[in-house]
């Protein structure tokens, strides 16, 4: 996907937050320019926002605890919200959530607005809440998020660690909307990232038209679970405004 074909584009500095409203068939390409970035993501069905990304349903339906090419992000209603149609990265975290102010201060030290003005150290929780608030949502809607461009491994005993594989300058991922989807992003650092230097890299975010998933789409055909999930998503659109298409 060449970046000059983006219909909408934003460069999001580290620590900040942003939203995209993606109608079905549009896709969001995220690029971690510096390699040190992290993108926390929440997703909602824009037509019925009580339907939202569900970490547990995403994991168990696809028998995975990582997200990669061919995976989808399931809602709590058995439908894919976003599908990973392209991915250079390979292992995005699902199980660590985001940072709060106390965690950021413990890791990076205190650098608040009083001292640093707009270079203050922002955190993921506050970023998500500021974004949720813009769309009439709130604390109840802050569910476990996905973390793109961060790899978290789990050993046989269940211990988790942030992998050095997370550092991949130029890594990108493409997320196609399977419903009309409200995507909320925070570029605050991953909760397991070590200090003391707060990240500085930007995330490039661009929207392009991908079109609906084909019959042979890599996400749809990844497993029987996803085939049924896509059927559920298509059923959501079975009753179009103005009657059935001729």
């Amino acid at each position, binding site marked *: 996907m060449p970046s000059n074909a983006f219909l909408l584009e934003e460069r999001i500095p580290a620590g900040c937050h942003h939203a995209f409203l993606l109608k079905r068939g549009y896709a969001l390409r995220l690029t971690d320019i510096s390699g040190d970035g992290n993108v926390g993501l929440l997703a909602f069905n824009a037509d019925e926002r*009580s339907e939202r990304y*569900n*970490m*547990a*349903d995403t*994991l*168990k*339906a696809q*028998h*995975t*605890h*990582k997200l*990669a090419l061919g995976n989808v992000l*399931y809602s*709590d*209603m*058995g*439908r894919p919200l976003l599908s990973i149609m392209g991915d250079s990265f390979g*292992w995005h975290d699902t*199980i*660590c*959530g985001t940072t*709060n102010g*106390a*965690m950021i201060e413990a890791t990076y030290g205190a650098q608040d607005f009083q001292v640093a003005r707009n270079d203050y150290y922002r955190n993921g929780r506050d970023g998500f809440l500021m974004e949720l608030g813009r769309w009439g949502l*709130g*604390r*109840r*809607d*802050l*569910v*476990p998020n996905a973390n793109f461009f961060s790899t978290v*491994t*789990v*050993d*046989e*005993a*269940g*211990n*988790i*660690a942030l992998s050095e594989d997370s550092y991949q300058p130029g890594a990108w991922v493409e997320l196609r909307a399977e419903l009309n989807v409200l995507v909320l992003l925070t570029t605050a650092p991953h*909760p*397991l990232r070590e200090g003391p230097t707060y990240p500085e890299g930007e995330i490039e975010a661009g929207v392009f038209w991908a079109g609906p998933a084909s019959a042979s789409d890599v996400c749809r055909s990844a497993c029987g*679970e*996803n085939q*049924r*999930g896509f*059927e*559920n998503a298509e059923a959501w659109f079975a009753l179009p405004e103005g009657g059935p298409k001729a």
Partner: protein
Amino acid sequence: MSTLLRQETIRAGDPFMARIEAGQRCRLVDTEGNEAVDTFFFNANDSRERYSAVDTVRRQRNVYLSTGTELVSNEDRTMLTIVDDTCGRHDTLGGACAAESNTVRYAHDRKFMHSCRDNFLLALLNWNEDFSKRDLGPNINFFMNVPLSPDGQLRFADGISGPGKYVELVAAMDVLILISNCPQLNNPCSGFNPTPVEFLLWDA
């Protein structure tokens, strides 16, 4: 000497909800073994504060729950601590079964089977109509075995629990406990045969 305040049997497939005061101790008993007890918590005085699976995992740097695990809220506060556990390990990443996710995981014709999410919604709305689906999040599955592998996989495996195994928790704040004694018949989490669990509550 602590005093037993409450003892209830939660039948297979039933919901249950109760208030636990700070300092009280509760025990869940897998009476016949291999049961999955889907469990969620709210701060009893502020229902916007609720159990958070990812904050619990992140704080202890481990995905499995057992003795010593602090159950952490979305405000990063300890809600309860697991003080005893004869099963050894519990899941918090598999979530609750639901009609819709059953259609994805198994087949479209499983939609009308009984599920934990329906139990959760029924118990919540009977408790207080201000609750809704938005208040739910990934829960704990006591006695359920969901191993994660180093290559990134997650699966639902045969239970590691057995008859009479139990887990005990002490509340660090006033909480509401929300339980669905899982009615799932499509995977081994309840040994394909859901059975009763016992809830006991002591003053200390």
